[in-house]
């Protein structure tokens, strides 16, 4: 699977969860690697791209989470 597709899935997962449950990086890695049957390192690499591009950011609220940046 292309990295960009993985990234798309990650973004959708985070989007769906916004306002309901904050996701941790490990939640995303576990969910996406199981859903797409790929390794967690693949998920990590795609997540890194998303964060480097600024599409997702890390936040801290008594624990670190991955979220969509505020407008």
């Amino acid at each position: 699977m292309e990295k960009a597709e993985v990234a798309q899935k990650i973004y959708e997962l985070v989007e769906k969860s916004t306002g309901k449950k904050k996701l941790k990086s490990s939640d995303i890695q576990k969910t996406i690697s199981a859903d797409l049957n790929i390794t967690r390192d693949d998920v990590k690499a795609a997540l890194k791209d998303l964060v480097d591009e600024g599409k997702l950011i890390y936040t801290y609220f008594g624990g670190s989470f991955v979220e969509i940046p505020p407008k």
Partner: protein
Amino acid sequence: MAAPQRRTDIGPPHFKEFLPPVIQKNYGDWKHHEVLSGGVMVHTANSGDKLWSVRVASPRLLSTDTIRDYAAMAEKYCGGYIRFTTRNNVEFLVSDEKNLEPLQKELNSKKYMMGGIGPRISNIVHTQGWIHCHSAASDASGIVKVLMDEFADYFTTKETPNKVRLAVACCVNMCGAVHCSDIAVVAIHRKVPTIDHDKVKNMCEIPSTIAACPTGAISPEPSKKSVKINADKCMYCGNCFTVCPPIEIHDPEYDGVAIVVGGKVGNLRSNPKFSKLAIPFIKNNPPRWPEVTAAVKKILDAYIAGAEKHERVGEWIERIGWEKFFKITGLPFTFQHIDDFVVARETFRTAATFKW
């Protein structure tokens, strides 16, 4: 001017670049050291080379002006080499003995305090407080300053039976190893936070606010689209405020500090120990917290009078017994002193042997 090219994941530079030549040469090959005074020690290598370290107190919170002054002195006397200690002291690393006197002279003339080496009170490990932290129940820097003013002689010259390690934490998160210090001041909140329901509704994510509470004291209050707090479970930790500022933990009337004693981290003689509660509460009284200084002085004086040489505060108290400690110091013993947390039953006296 464009900013320079950023790089990621490079980590810190290798420490070797920052070691003075005498250390590079004798790395891992030191023979012994001697404490020459409260503020100076000399290490001798197997090669015969020597390194003098001159230790100076810093308030930890430093302006760039003071750092530049340190740098200038390091250049003048130490080939530019300088280090910091775990306890926020500054160490000038002198390789050439003839620079030792002039450095000390300059430090003295600028009113820097040399000390902290040997069986003395070293600088106080502490946290951010009102300077910079959202959960602070008191100010750490202020309390550190007044304690060190009071005990300045024990930093520079006077000796104690063994090292006395002081710490100040400005809330129960205790960002600083207070729980294993000889004498520590921990700031505490004492009241369940108040909730501004209208603001909670607009500003906070309810699920993350509930999840933030370590004791599970927070639950939804659907009628107000807000949360409620179970007063019996709340430990006043302030985590909820961190996540959701309309839940207000600060309370100037009731916030203050507790004093804990008898902890240590080293393994020497006896195992590392936690500090235990000596005084459950003293009201905040800025700017100089005279009641806190007096309380710490009372405990320190009792220790100096009673301890054998090399005994740390905790070792002294364990030898004489806690009941004796309370008797000697005259500190009142209250319900707060009896543990009702997870290790409670380990702390109950399961023997008929004790002192009157």
